[in-house]
């Protein structure tokens, strides 16, 4: 294996180019993958944040951001279905926000009952010693600049109603291009001008003794005019809507798929070219009586050394890049499994490309070694 290592160390220029190729490919794959993963996560973030088992929406609602109001009797009828233990309400509407210095802008206002889940950003919860007022309004730290709030609490206006912004939260940054504001359900419908019995989404908890699917079926029979979805179904529906049916989502999906494929092609091409550069040496080994496994081992070792070093450098470059990108694109996210999921196929492609190229070495025309 000394030959494999020495070949790499000897021609540092070629080695650098090979490693850079793999590094670029891994960077591209992980970065594009993070954009897609973050986009998918953001598309269903508020749905996933609820603890509820079932979401009831108006018929045909594709995503959380595009809900319409439900008839007032839906909540009462749902509450009466066997197995339903608790109901909660969520609403979302675009509203006009007036900053403390009088500037106006559109925001996405979300209101929810405290029962919808511990992770759902609702202000009137027993969170800490410094209890928030039930009518407090929260915003994500990444939207601070747009909110134009210097100190908290701050008095602002939402749809011409006085409102108190009391706290910054994290992880619920702008996804629609306008900031999210979170408040209690009661407060939100006041700002939105809804009636007290109106809701956009009814969220239900199901008794553990009842299968969720059975309760869902009963609800569908009792409420045929609405959509009854499990939380995961609604989250999936929202992700598919944003990814497949919107231009932005389609572009991100396409970019991620292309990034993945281009990454694999770059890795393969780079390793293939590197192996072919040494073809005469492999032919010589073969002429000297080296078994095929011996030659293959050298080629694979070289490819994997380049692949591993390139992948590590790619990951080292992409982590700070994603951290920086978060300041510009708050929803970008690299799940823990993403680097592994991108590096594994890269190394597989390194091996595959080297195996494909080593076939040329192993089937090399014998006369080649005699040519000057």
């Amino acid at each position, binding site marked *: 294996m*000394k*030959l494999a290592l020495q070949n790499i160390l*000897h*021609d540092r220029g070629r080695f650098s180019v090979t490693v850079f190729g793999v590094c670029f490919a891994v960077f591209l794959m992980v970065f594009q993958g993070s954009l897609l993963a973050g986009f998918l996560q953001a598309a269903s973030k508020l749905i996933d944040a609820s603890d509820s088992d079932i979401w009831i929406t108006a018929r045909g609602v594709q995503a959380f951001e595009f809900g319409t109001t439900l008839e007032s009797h839906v909540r009462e009828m749902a509450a009466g279905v066997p197995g339903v233990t608790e109901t909660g309400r969520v609403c979302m509407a675009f509203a006009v926000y007036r900053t403390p210095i009088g500037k106006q802008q559109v925001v996405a206002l979300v209101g929810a009952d405290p029962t919808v889940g511990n992770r759902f950003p609702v202000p009137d919860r027993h969170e800490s010693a410094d209890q928030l007022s039930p009518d407090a309004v929260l915003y994500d730290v990444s939207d601070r600049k747009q909110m134009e709030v210097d100190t908290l609490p701050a008095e602002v206006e939402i749809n011409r109603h006085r409102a108190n912004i009391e706290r910054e939260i994290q992880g619920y940054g702008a996804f629609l291009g306008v900031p999210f504001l979170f408040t209690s359900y009661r407060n939100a419908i006041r700002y939105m001008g809804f009636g007290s019995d109106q809701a956009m989404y009814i969220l239900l908890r199901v008794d553990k003794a009842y299968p969720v699917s059975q309760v869902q079926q009963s609800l569908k029979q009792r409420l045929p005019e609405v959509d009854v979805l499990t939380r995961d179904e609604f989250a999936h529906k929202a992700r598919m809507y944003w990814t497949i049916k919107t231009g932005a989502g389609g572009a991100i999906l396409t970019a991620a798929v292309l990034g993945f494929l281009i990454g694999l092609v770059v890795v393969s091409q780079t390793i293939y070219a590197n192996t072919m550069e040494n073809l005469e040496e492999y032919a010589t080994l073969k002429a*000297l*009586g*080296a078994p095929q496994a011996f030659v293959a081992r050298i080629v694979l070792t070289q490819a994997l050394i380049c692949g591993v070093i390139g992948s590590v450098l790619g990951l080292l470059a992409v982590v700070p890049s994603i951290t920086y990108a978060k300041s510009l694109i708050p929803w970008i996210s690299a799940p823990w499994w993403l680097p592994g999921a991108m590096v594994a196929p890269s190394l597989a492609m390194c091996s595959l490309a080297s195996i494909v190229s080593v076939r040329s070495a192993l089937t090399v025309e014998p*006369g080649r070694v005699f040519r000057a």
Partner: protein
Amino acid sequence: MPNLFLGVEGATVSFGQEDARVYALRDVSLSFEPGTLSLVMGPSGSGKTTLLSMLGCLLSPDEGSVFVDGVAVNGLSEAERTVVRQKKISFVFQVFRLFHSLSALDNVALGFEIRDPAASRRTEKARDLLLQFGLGDKLHQEPNELSAGEKQRVAIARALAGNPPILLADEPTASLDAEAGRNICQILRSQVDEHGRTVVVVSHDPRWEKFADRIVTLCDGCVEEEVGVL
């Protein structure tokens, strides 16, 4: 069928198909006796390298047989022919074919690694061989730091790793000056005289004539002349 130590019997080799077919060798029969140095001469395109490729188990004839150490090898599988090369045959090339990233010592040690993977003290054995060829002060130099003559001596040392009985040399002095060329001729001759190896040299170089036991001249893929010299 004759049982030759090293040679070809009725060997025909062609390249291309139908109208474009070119014959490199036509019905050639040659035998190389053990412990001799044979010189194969002839103009370009006469089939010298094709003959060497067959003797080295790198090429099978369309027709006829190839014998190495008394065994007909053209019926063997690729893997079996690799083993024959590993155990019996070694090559010396015109352009040396040294591994550019390895030192002289590592090049020769690699020869041992390929031919005798189980052997211990490969580096020491490689050092001994290089010392024999007067390269004791060049052990750790890479090929691009060596003169052409030194490169060829390293290549011969690598070829001798594992003690193969047959040495096939393709124009081994073509890239060398007069003195270095003479030195290589002497080294290969000594492999015959002192170690009993069988050496086949393909060359245009007339200097080889006085070192060869036999001269075979090929022309247009056929044996034109065979002359015993020594």
